[in-house]
């Protein structure tokens, strides 16, 4: 971390990679579901990046890292709780009319979902983060900015570019 604070990119990349298993363990203890854990891990990495100047080389690294990971996992847990409170209870599936058995429609939907997934994967990390925070999680811009470490302006630009890139890739007119 000391080398990373001095600007050593290789040391930094190695450090972040080595942090991932530990951070994943911390997040997994507080969260359910791989996607949510993965989000919290990535959020933790972004936070490490934003406040890497707060690490004191004279002190052990693990408590510094653990606190950041726990904070991000708690934030994700709270957000999940708020989302759950807003979601209406599901109707019993047996009461619903059976979905369309049309295999062609089903296939088309699946293909579109795959295309969307691939288009999202092709976005840059910053665009994906912006899209996730500002559009999917629907966070206020200031909060999304705080979490991502990007300025509000950069966040708006990244979100706009992400949407435009998705439209281009999916063959929709912007």
């Amino acid at each position, binding site marked *: 971390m000391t080398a990373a604070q001095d600007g050593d*990119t290789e040391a930094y990349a190695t450090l*972040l990679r080595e942090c991932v298993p530990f951070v994943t363990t911390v997040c997994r203890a507080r969260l359910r579901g791989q996607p949510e854990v993965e989000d919290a891990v990535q959020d933790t990495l972004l936070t490490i990046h934003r406040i890497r100047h707060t690490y004191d080389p004279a002190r052990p690294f693990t408590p510094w890292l653990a*606190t950041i990971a726990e904070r991000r996992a708690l934030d994700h847990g709270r957000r999940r709780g708020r989302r759950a409170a807003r979601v209406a209870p599901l109707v019993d599936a047996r009461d619903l009319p059976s979905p369309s058995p049309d295999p062609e429609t089903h296939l088309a939907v699946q293909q579109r979902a795959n295309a969307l997934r691939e288009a999202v994967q092709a976005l840059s990390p910053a665009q994906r983060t912006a899209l996730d925070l500002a559009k999917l999680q629907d966070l206020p811009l200031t909060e999304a900015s705080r979490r991502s470490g990007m300025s509000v302006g950069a966040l708006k630009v990244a979100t706009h570019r992400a949407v435009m890139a998705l439209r281009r890739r999916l063959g929709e007119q912007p």
Partner: protein
Amino acid sequence: MTDRMDTERLIAGLSRNLRPVRRVLHPLLAAMLWIVIGAAVVAFAVATIAEATAITSEFRAGLESWHLLLASGTGVAAALAAFELALPDRDQRWALLPLVPAMAWVSLHAGGWAKHLAYDGLGALRLDVSLECAGFILGVGLPLSVLLLRLARHAALLRPRAVAALGGLAAASLASAGLSCVHRLYSEGMVLAWHGLGIGVVILLSVWLGPRIMTLRLLTH
């Protein structure tokens, strides 16, 4: 596997344009820096509202000196606690540091007011309006709180509210200490009411606006 790739890409993105960073000041040094600036600001504010002779004549060896000592102690302890808590690897019990001086400070005036109540009866409940007390604490405390929150802005991603509350307490306590140099503390009830109001408002505003004040620099990046 795809998610793993995401994290890999994020790591590559973060490390690609890595810039060297300057480490934050040690909490003790940061607290000392803020206290020196805070003391200078309070001294300047005190000097602008009173002549030097008035300062010495208003200041008494009894209530005011204890008020000055305990308010300053609370301010110093709260500032140190705020800078400690702003760092990820510090124990959350730092938040309790200002508890003892703050309780002693409140007890000083609560005890005096209780005696006054026993002696004077309902007369002790009558409070004169002393808006200048609350005004001084707000006018001096709020800028000092903003300064502390800017110095501890890295707390925005960790414990913004706790640090903001401690920052507000530190700033308002220093302002209250300064006020006792120029403003005679006529009765404990009045001190409890108007100093308490001023300090409470500074803390509430700090907690409310603190996270935004801390992230102000991030937004301009």
